[in-house]
């Protein structure tokens, strides 16, 4: 039995479900500086969900073996973000916080890291902070690293699993073509991406009903001692424009009746059994 106490935080984000956007809706232009996809549903970023699941599993795997662990969830957004926080509570999070802020920082990861750092500093030193590798349409993937720099604690990317150890936490992570096993002392930050074999828990109806009654703590930038005009200047780049990926191939359409011979040739070519192919 390993006696330990862990206070953990998961940073999550409500993002548009881009799978719902048909190809023709990816429009932009002079009068439309950003694609208009406000009609799609918002969901919790899937990588953030994986990060939450990793912490919940750590808590559940060792709670009968001496581990006292709390899992807190935080998001930055508007009132609509409360839904994903309630979903996290239904999944098993102990408490949730909304930093209510109407500005979406998009590609300004430095501003997001400043908010997370301020929260962590004011509301208790967390032993483990987890988040998805990237979130939001701009696919930054930099917030966790910036937070790690600001807090001066290690950051481990692509975490696959967490295990309690005598001297800290065993972290299994993926680094390029290697699965690595590291021993981390608290505190540290971890990011999650796609995790092989990880299936997410589905809250029961009872759990959802109970979470709907849970209070969500709501904070503002002022509560964190931050000023919008200061943190919004932290970025060093400006978005100039969008453009679409260009078509590169001229597709040759084949009638169903002519199929077998054509496909057979291509398959043989692919397997290296014969060279050349005529369509």
């Amino acid at each position, binding site marked *: 039995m390993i006696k330990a106490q862990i206070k953990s935080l998961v940073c999550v984000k409500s993002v548009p479900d881009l799978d719902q956007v048909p190809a023709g809706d990816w429009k*932009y232009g002079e009068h439309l500086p950003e694609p208009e996809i406000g009609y799609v549903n918002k969901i919790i970023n*899937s990588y953030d969900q994986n990060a939450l699941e990793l912490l919940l599993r750590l808590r559940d795997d060792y709670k009968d073996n001496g581990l006292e662990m709390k899992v807190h969830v935080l998001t930055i957004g508007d009132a609509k973000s409360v839904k994903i926080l309630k979903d996290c509570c239904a999944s098993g999070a102990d408490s949730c916080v909304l930093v209510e802020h109407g500005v979406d920082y998009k590609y300004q990861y430095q501003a997001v890291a400043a908010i997370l750092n301020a929260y962590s500093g004011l509301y208790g030193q967390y032993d483990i902070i987890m988040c998805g590798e990237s979130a939001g349409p701009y696919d930054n993937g930099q917030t966790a690293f910036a937070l790690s720099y600001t807090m001066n604690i290690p950051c481990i990317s692509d975490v696959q699993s967490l295990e309690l150890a005598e001297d800290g936490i065993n972290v299994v992570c993926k680094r390029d073509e290697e699965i690595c096993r590291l021993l981390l002392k608290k505190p540290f930050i971890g990011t999650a991406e796609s995790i092989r074999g990880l299936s997410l828990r589905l809250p029961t109806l009872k759990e959802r009903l109970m979470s709907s009654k849970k209070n969500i703590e709501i904070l503002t930038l002022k509560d964190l001692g931050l000023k919008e005009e200061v943190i919004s200047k932290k970025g*060093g*780049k400006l978005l*100039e424009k969008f453009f679409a990926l260009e078509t590169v191939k001229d*597709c040759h359409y*084949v009638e169903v009746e002519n199929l077998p011979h054509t496909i057979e040739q291509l398959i043989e070519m*692919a397997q290296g059994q014969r060279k050349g192919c005529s369509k």
Partner: protein
Amino acid sequence: MNVLIVAHEDERPESLRRLWAAANLSGADEIRVTQCILSRPANGFGRTAYISDEIILCKKGDCHPWEAAQVRSAVRDIMQTRSFPLVLLGNHYPGAQAAVCLACDTDGESILNASCAKVSNGELMVTKAVYASNMNAVYRIKKKPCFITLRNDIDSQIKLQIANKPVIAEKTYNFTDSESMIYLSGKKIEQNMLQSAKCVVIAGRGIRNTQDLALVEKFARSIRAELGGSRPLIMNGLLPTERMIGQSGKIIAPNLCIAIGVSGAAPLAAGIQQSKKMIAVNQDREAPIFKIADLGIVADYHEVLARVMR
């Protein structure tokens, strides 16, 4: 303009090609490229291809892989001797983390998974895929230096050459072990069968149930192809996570890719667009998959597969 490339001794050729292509910024006058080679005793200097005008060799005393904090130390030392407005790092570990930390150190900027960089009207512009690769965004860099890593699914196809370049500086680092993070063990991941297959069949959202999937699996077995799936199939539990193709899964470049019931949404397209030849089967002639396919079959895949397997 001075450009610094930070690459490992054993950096993969496709990564070196990307770095070299990106370093040759279009629109810039007089580019001078310096290559920082991160070496360790396990490697042995001299095996890498040189993609620059000059070399700075950074050696470390232990055999463990370079960590982000160590890369950061080495690059900061280099940048104290000369100004580099643009620094390119390999996308694999620990390039991304090192890039962000260096940007914080220098009050510069960082962009990960960029597609390319260029100079326009004297300003550094960096392009990156956003919105799950459905769009590209162009950023104007206001703060320099700018630290960039390049996305893995682009290959410049240039020919790398081994050539003698002057080593203008050499430094050996003896880093002390970190007390907060201890490397216990590492195990090489076996190359995923999808990434090594010559022929891959991709099942898309049009495959709605296990019976449909069984038909596609039978087809894949009949032509000795590996089977992959788009994200919706994985999320529906029809295929395991390791078979996911696309931006969230595997990037593949087989000789032949056969996309069955695949719409061609950008995240999946990013995973298969390097295929040498692609056949797409979809009932919708307007499906985006036909924009990246060599051969298009507008038909019900049940009929198509039945004919082919007859």
